[in-house]
Each structure stands twice: as structure tokens, then as C-alpha cells.
């Protein structure tokens, strides 16, 4: 299908300011292939079905809109968690702030350095899951990322890692435009936690490809930066093999525009994928979770749990799909998306979808929008809890199901404390 001229023009304008990073054989091939995919698709437009609720204009514009820097003035999240820190400042690796990239059972290589080396596992992953994820829905921003990513981490895990790998994204330049691409290969029976945090840049395009082999486990906890004006379009592409598990949780507070795509394929029997998100939006805030889970094996379990608290005109979007392929019997699919609207100005747009081609499956989905439960609020107040803190308790209660998806209790407690601080600050 021919790409409409408007899309072609937008793509040309966007690519004019970019150059394909130099690299060796495998990375050049992968990047050129991605560029070819992108040329065929063009950049996303508001008229595209997949972008109906979120205007991609800010993501596709030739340059990033300025985003003021923001100092949250609080103890950074994950401070108490044992981790190997890898720091990027406006998308540029910072060796001074980063820890030594060594961890038993884990190979960590920077993309910028690895593309000249022949890392077979990276070659088999970089852009591969992204390319698989282009069907049946086009994801041009991810192809753009594969082609033009300036850096990122290539991680291969062969054992149970005793520390988390923590990606820290600082935002120090008001007009920075960052493209990072990470690949994570969890080998059989291996186990890794990846933490991500920070606003990253004025505009951030990030792709993470995660391949979990038989019996492997991957945990992902992300806290997206609080800079009010930052924009982020992120993709996670995951492929989960037999008896393996993939679990991802994202907390988003602030940020004028966020689109988080998760594209997950369960390809081995008894695989598990959980993807969850909690977001708090106040004012000029648009947050979109778009999830596509494909069941392509037997007895797999998937959960999508998304909770959004919105006020002062904030907008939340959820597009979630469960696709159960023929033969994916005994599938257990669950999807819930809910918003708590704290006033009449805020908006939640949800598009839950199930597409099922197997006859012995259990799939459920639900989507609700509601206000604070006044009865509950009165009950708390009648016990002496003032209205503000009582409302906060109700908000935390609303988010609890999403937070419960975080397996590590210390990390979950850290996330809850973030939320409490945000809520009490907003109360003033």
C-alpha cells in the first residue's frame, strides 16, 4: 500500500535531521532493514486507527519541543535497592555516574560499542522482535528507533542475577531528543530484574526487546520521570518461551505526553506475562497504554492491569488486546483497565479487545471509570482521618491491584512511598 504523501513528507522532515549510526555488519543490516520498514509505513498520524486517542504529532515532529527541567527534590526512587546503575544523560551514556558494568551471570554491553563486535545473540535480537511486532499493527516509531538508536544496552543473562540492572535517565538539556534501544536475552532458567527511571530527555523514543527462554524470568519496574513537559514514546517487545515469565510494571506521574506500547508474544506452553501500570495525571497530562498480548501456545497466562488517577483535565488512554491464536488452548487471559476521575474535567478513553481463535480458553476483560467512593470516604473521615489524607488512602487503594503486580516487596514499598509523597505534595 502506498504511503500517503503527507506521511511521506512528515517522514522526510523527521529523517532529515538524523543520520544512521555507523556500525559493523549486523547492526548496519538491522538498521537498514528497519529504515526500509519505516519507509513503507510512514510516520503515525492522528488519523491512524492506532493513534485515534493520542495525537502523535509531538513524537513525529522534526525536532523535540523544549521541556523545562524539573527538580523533584526528593530521595530518588530505587535508592535503597541493590542494583548496578547505568546512567544516560539526555540519551548519552555517562561513564562517570554509572557503575562498573559487571554482574555475575550477566553480560552487559553498550549498543554503541557492541555493533562492531559479532555478538550472535544481539544480532538475533536487535530489531528482530520489533520487526515481528509490526504485524498486524504498524509501529513506525519503533522501526525509527531500531534504525536510529544512538545507544542502549545489550544484556544477556545466563544465571539468576543477584542484583537488578538499573537504567537511570537524566534530563539536563531542555531540547534533548533521545533514542535508546535495549535488548535483553534471558537464557534458560536465568532471572533478571531491570529497573528504569527518569525523564530521559525532552523527547524520548525508547525500545526494549526482551527474549525470555524456557524457564527464564524477567522482571521490569519502571518509573517514568516527573518532568512536566517531557514526551516519551516507548515500546517493549517481549517473546516468552515455555514456562518462562515476563512481568512489567510502570508508574507514571506527570509528563505532558506518554505513549507506552507493550507487545508480548507467549510462544511456549505455560508461559506467563503480566503487564501493569499505575498513573497519576494532574493537569496537562496525556498518558496512553497500548498493549498487545498474543497467546500462541497452550496453558499460558496473561494479565493486563492498568489504573489511572486523573484530575484537572488529565487524559488517560488504554488500548489493550488479547489475541488467542488457534491451538492456544487453556489460555488464561485477564485484562482490567480502570480510571479514577477526581473531577469532571478529566477523561479516560478505553478500548479493550479480545480476539480468540481457540475454543477452550478463559479470557476476561473489564474497563471502568468512576469517582471516589463517597461512602468509603465518609467512613474514613468518621474515624478521624481528614478529607485530604482519606482521599489519598482511597487513591492508593484504587492503585493497589496494579502495584500488587510488583513481585519484589521492597520495590513495591518504594513505589508506594513515591505515590504517597506525590499525593501529599499535590494536596499542598
Amino acid at each position, binding site marked *: 500500500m502506498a504511503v500517503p504523501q503527507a506521511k511521506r513528507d512528515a517522514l522526510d522532515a523527521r529523517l532529515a535531521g538524523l543520520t544512521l549510526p555507523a556500525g559493523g555488519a549486523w547492526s548496519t543490516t538491522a538498521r537498514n532493514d528497519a529504515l526500509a520498514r519505516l519507509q513503507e509505513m510512514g510516520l503515525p498520524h492522528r488519523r491512524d486507527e492506532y493513534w485515534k486517542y493520542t495525537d502523535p504529532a509531538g513524537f513525529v515532529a522534526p525536532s523535540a519541543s523544549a521541556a523545562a527541567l524539573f527538580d523533584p527534590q526528593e530521595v530518588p526512587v530505587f535508592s535503597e535497592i541493590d542494583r548496578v546503575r547505568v546512567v544516560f544523560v539526555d540519551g548519552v551514556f555517562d561513564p562517570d555516574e554509572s557503575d562498573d558494568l559487571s554482574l555475575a551471570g550477566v553480560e552487559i554491553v553498550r549498543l554503541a560499542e557492541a555493533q562492531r563486535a559479532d555478538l550472535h545473540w544481539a544480532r538475533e535480537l536487535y530489531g528482530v522482535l520489533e520487526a515481528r511486532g509490526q504485524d498486524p499493527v504498524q509501529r513506525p516509531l519503533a522501526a525509527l528507533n531500531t534504525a536510529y538508536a544512538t545507544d542502549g544496552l545489550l544484556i544477556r543473562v545466563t544465571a539468576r542475577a543477584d542484583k537488578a540492572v538499573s537504567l537511570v535517565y537524566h534530563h539536563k538539556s531542555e531540547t534533548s531528543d533521545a533514542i535508546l534501544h535495549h535488548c535483553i536475552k534471558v537464557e534458560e532458567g536465568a532471572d533478571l530484574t531491570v529497573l528504569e527511571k527518569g525523564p530521559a530527555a525532552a523527547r524520548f523514543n525508547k525500545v526494549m526487546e526482551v527474549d525470555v527462554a524456557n524457564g527464564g524470568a524477567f522482571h521490569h519496574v519502571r518509573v517514568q520521570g516527573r518532568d512536566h513537559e517531557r514526551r516519551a514514546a516507548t515500546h517493549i517487545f517481549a517473546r516468552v518461551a515455555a514456562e518462562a515469565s515476563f512481568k512489567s510494571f510502570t508508574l507514571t506521574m506527570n509528563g505532558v505526553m506518554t505513549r507506552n506500547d507493550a507487545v508480548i508474544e507467549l510462544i511456549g506452553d505455560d508461559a506467563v506475562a503480566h503487564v501493569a501500570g499505575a498513573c497519576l495525571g494532574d493537569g496537562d497530562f496525556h498518558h496512553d497504554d497500548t498493549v498487545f498480548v498474543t497467546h500462541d501456545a497452550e496453558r499460558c497466562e496473561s494479565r493486563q492491569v492498568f489504573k489511572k488517577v486523573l484530575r484537572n483535565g488529565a487524559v488517560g488512554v488504554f488500548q489493550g488486546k488479547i489475541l488467542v491464536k488457534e491451538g492456544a488452548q487453556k489460555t488464561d487471559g485477564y485484562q482490567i483497565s480502570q480510571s479514577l476521575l477526581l473531577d469532571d474535567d478529566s477523561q479516560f478513553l478505553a478500548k479493550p479487545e479480545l480476539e480468540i481463535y481457540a475454543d477452550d480458553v478463559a479470557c476476561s476483560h473489564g474497563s471502568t471509570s468512576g469517582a471516589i467512593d463517597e461512602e468509603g470516604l465518609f*467512613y474514613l473521615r*468518621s*474515624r*478521624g482521618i481528614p478529607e485530604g489524607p482519606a482521599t489519598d488512602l482511597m487513591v*492508593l*487503594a484504587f492503585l*493497589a491491584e496494579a502495584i500488587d503486580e510488583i513481585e519484589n516487596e521492597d520495590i513495591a514499598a518504594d513505589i508506594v512511598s513515591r505515590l504517597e509523597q506525590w499525593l501529599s505534595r499535590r494536596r499542598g
Partner: protein
Amino acid sequence: MLEIKNLHVKLEEEDKQILKGVDLTVEAGKVHAIMGPNGSGKSTLSYVLSGRDGYEVTEGAATLEGEDILELEPEERAAAGLFLAFQYPIEIPGVGNMTFLRTAVNAQRKARGQEEMSAAEFLKEIRAKAKTLQIDPEMLKRPVNVGFSGGEKKRNEILQMAMLEPKMCILDETDSGLDVDAMKLVSDGVNALRDAGRAFLVITHYQRLLDHIKPDVVHIMADGRIVKSGGPELALQVETEGYGDLLKETV
């Protein structure tokens, strides 16, 4: 302790008068019971006193130890020492019972300018009090009232009362939905809290709760007023004769 004078209350949303001049004085150290047929305004009285939305006071006053409480927010009334044990305790998914109670205890302490209770101190106290009410420690960890049986919910109300140590306790049909054993347990919990500095207002349909929580004064409420007051024998009279004759007498 609690003084209600000529209290008139209507529903906010519609022009319906519910309370039509309630006069009631509950002294410290005493237990007063209010009985009355359905729709007489008993529960409305308890809600208005605790500050629930949806009601409008059109006339009259209510004071707690001399302080006008009708202008206070619900949390301020609680901090002043008022407690309502709900007829239908509210379920709050996602909020742990323990977190809820510790937040409440410390919010009240803060409002009164007292020091907050430490986590360890709180834990020790709640465990002891839960034990006397035969509340499973697991129940303390569960979300507030979620999945609790009727009896467990009512015991949880009494546990909250025991932890918050209010001066004026209002029990709104605490006996409803309780079997005999559960009623005894709840009553024992209430009786353990009786002391010279604390007063109770027990709202009930039935005399049987008053076998366990012995009242000093019994009031009969009908059509938004207290129509008759007397000693415990009044409750027995209701039990044997029903409200019919009693109400006729007062006309």
C-alpha cells in the same frame, strides 16, 4: 456529655423532614438506648451526629461536652471524641485494616496535639484488643471489611472503637445480623469500654441486645421525636407489647 436540643433535620435532596424536634441528653458514664419502629429516624440521628452528607439541620443544636458539633467536619467530630459504629460497615478494597486504623489513631492524636503512636506500640495494642474480641490477626491485614462476615464487620467496628477510645459512642443497630454468640462477643467488647468518662447511645430494634449491654435510660423514638423515656423496663415492655400500645399512650 451529649446534648441534643430540639433537633430538626430534613433530607438535603428532597423536602422531607426526618427529625422533628429531638431532645436528648446523655450523661458521662451512662448508657442510653434508643428504640423505635422502622422509619422513626433513629439511623438519621446517628448519621447527622457523625456528619454524613445529605442532611440539613433546619433547627436545633447538638453539643458534645458543650462544643457545637453540627458545624464540624466528620473528622473533627471524631477527634472531639465522637464515634459511630455503623449499621453497615463500609468495605474499602485496597486499604489494609491495620493501615486504616493506625492512620485514624494518629490523625486523631495529631488533631488533639498529642504525640503519634509508634508502629510497635500500635501493633502491641491492636493485637491485644483484637484478641479479646476474638479477631483473627489475619483479619487485621486484610482490606477494611472486604470479605468479612456480618459478625466480623461488627467486631471490627468495636475494635476500632476500642483503639480510638472515643468519649461518646453511638452504636447503630450493632446487633443486626448477629447470631447469639457474636452478639455476646460484641456486647462484652462494649461493656469492657464502659467507664465513668464515656457515654453510649445504643440504637436498636430489639430488647435482646440490651440484655447484654444494660442501659441506664431507654428512649422510644417515633416519627422523628423521642416520645417516651424510662428505665430498662421500657425495653421489656416493647419486647412484650410491641410499639403499638406505647405509641398510642403518647398521643
